[in-house]
C-alpha cells in the first residue's frame, strides 16, 4: 500500500469511530467534541483529494464556527444531564424511517453526481481543488445555483434575526 492509502484508512477509521462516538456518548459535550474530530478526519480526506480550499473552508465553517456555537449553547443551557427523558417508541420509529429515507436520497444523488461533473476541470486534473479552479467553475458554470443558494442563506438569516426580536407584534 502507498502512504496515501495508509492515510486514507487511518482517516476513515478516525472518522467512523468519532462519528459513532457522537451517537453513543452520553454527555452532549463529548458528542460535540467527537463531531469536531469527525470534521477533521473529513477535512483530511479533502486534502487527500487535493481539495485544499474545501478542506480549509470545512474547518473554518464547521469546526471553527458552527461547532463553537453548538458548544456554546450546550454549555450555557447546561445540558450535561445524563437523565434525558426516554422517547416514545413511535417517535423513534418515525425518526429512524426519516433518517433512512434521507440516506437513500443522499446515496441516490451521489450516484448520479458523476453525470453533472463540471466540464472544464476535466482537462486540468492536477489543480482540481485549488481556489482558482473552484472559483472559475462556481462563477461560470454554476453561477445560478450558487447565487440561489446564497439567497437561501440570506433569507434564513433574515428569518433568524426577525425571530430573535424581542417585541414581536
Amino acid at each position, binding site marked *: 500500500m502507498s502512504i496515501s492509502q495508509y492515510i486514507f484508512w487511518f482517516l476513515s477509521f478516525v472518522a467512523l469511530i468519532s462519528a459513532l462516538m457522537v451517537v453513543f456518548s452520553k454527555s452532549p459535550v463529548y458528542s460535540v467534541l467527537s463531531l469536531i474530530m469527525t470534521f477533521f478526519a473529513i477535512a483530511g480526506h479533502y486534502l487527500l483529494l487535493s481539495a485544499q480550499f474545501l478542506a480549509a473552508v470545512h474547518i473554518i465553517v464547521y469546526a*471553527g464556527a458552527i461547532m463553537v456555537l453548538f458548544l456554546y449553547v450546550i454549555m450555557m443551557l447546561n445540558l450535561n444531564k445524563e437523565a434525558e427523558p426516554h422517547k416514545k417508541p413511535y417517535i423513534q420509529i418515525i425518526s429512524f424511517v426519516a433518517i433512512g429515507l434521507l440516506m437513500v436520497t443522499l446515496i441516490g444523488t451521489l450516484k448520479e453526481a458523476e453525470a453533472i461533473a463540471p466540464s472544464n476541470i476535466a482537462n486540468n486534473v492536477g489543480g482540481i481543488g485549488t481556489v482558482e479552479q473552484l472559483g472559475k467553475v462556481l462563477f461560470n458554470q454554476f453561477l445560478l445555483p450558487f447565487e440561489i443558494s446564497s439567497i437561501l442563506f440570506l433569507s434564513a438569516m433574515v428569518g433568524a434575526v426577525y425571530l430573535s426580536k424581542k417585541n414581536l407584534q
Partner: protein
Amino acid sequence: MDPLLIKAIIVLIIFAITLLVATYSTWGERKVAAFLQDRVGPNRAGPGGLLQPLADAVKMFMKEEIIPSVSNKWLFILGPCISMLTALMTGVVIPWGGDITLGGQTFNLQIVDLNIGILYLFGVVSLGVYGIMIGGWASNNKYSLLGAIRASSQMISYEIAMGLAIIALVMTTGTLSLKEIVQQQDAGFANIVYQPLGFVIFLICAFAETNRAPFDLPECETELIGGYHTEYSSMKLGFFLFAEYINMFISSAVIVSFYFGGYNFPFQHELGLEGNWLTIVQTIVFFMKVLGFVFFFFWVRWTLPRFRYDQLMNLGWKVLLPLALVNIFITGLTMWFLGKI
C-alpha cells in the same frame, strides 16, 4: 543537505524564537506597564530584571498542581494543550524572510508556502477558542464557565469582521498566499496604503481574538476572578498565559505581513546588499516591525480601560461588521473605476 532536514531545522529555530519572544514579552509587558504607571518594574533578577522570565518559569513549574475533584479531568488537561497547540500552529505560514543560500542550495525562511495560507491562518485562529471553552467548562466553576462563554461569543463575533477585512485585502492582492502578498509589497507600496480602513478593522479584531485588553472580558478579574483560568494552577495556567503571548506575537507578525510590507523595507535594493546579507537584514527589519506591534499591544492594554460586555458586542456587530462591508464595497468600486476588474 537534505531539504527535509533543513526544513526541520527552520521549524525548530522558528519554534525556539517564538517561545523566546513570548517569554521576553512577559518581561517587556511588565516594563512597559511600569513605565506607563511611573514605576520601576522588575529589576531584581539579573540586570534590569532580564532574568525575571526564568524566575517566573521556575515558579510556575514548582507550584502545586491542582485538578479540582469535581472537574472533568481529561478535558481540564486538554484545554491548555489546545490553546498552546493552536497558538504555535499559526507560525507555519508566516514568511519570516527571503531566500537563504547555503552550500549552493537555496532555502526559503517560510516553513511552508500554502496557496491557501490566509485560509489556513483563519482556520487555526478560529480553533483557538476551543482551548478556552473546554478549559473553562471542564473546571466546573461558574466564573470559569462565564469566561468561556464570553470568550466564545466574542471570538465568533469578531471573526466575522476580521474575515471581511481580509476579503477586501484578498480583492486587492488577488492571492491567498502570504508569501505572494509580501512579495507584491516589495514592488509597490505597503498594503496599508490601499487598505487603511481594512487595517484598522483587522487590528481591532486582532485585539479581540487574542483576548487582550480592552477586549479581555473572558478573564476580566474584577468581575470573574480569573475568568476561564480561575481553577488552573501551576504550568497549566502558564500554558494559557503563554499561549496569549504567542498569539500576540503571531498576530503582530500577521499584521506586518498583511499590511506593512512583511520583511520588505523602503530602498532595500539600493543598499548594495545581496543574497544572504539582504535576507538577514530583511529578517531583522521584520522582527523590528513585529516587536513594534507587540509594543503597541502593551501600550493599548495599559492605556485603555476595559469595555463593558454590551459595548463590546455593539462594537463588533453594529460598527465593525458594517464598516467591513462598506470597505469591501469601496474596494470593489475603486478597483472597478481603475479598470482592474
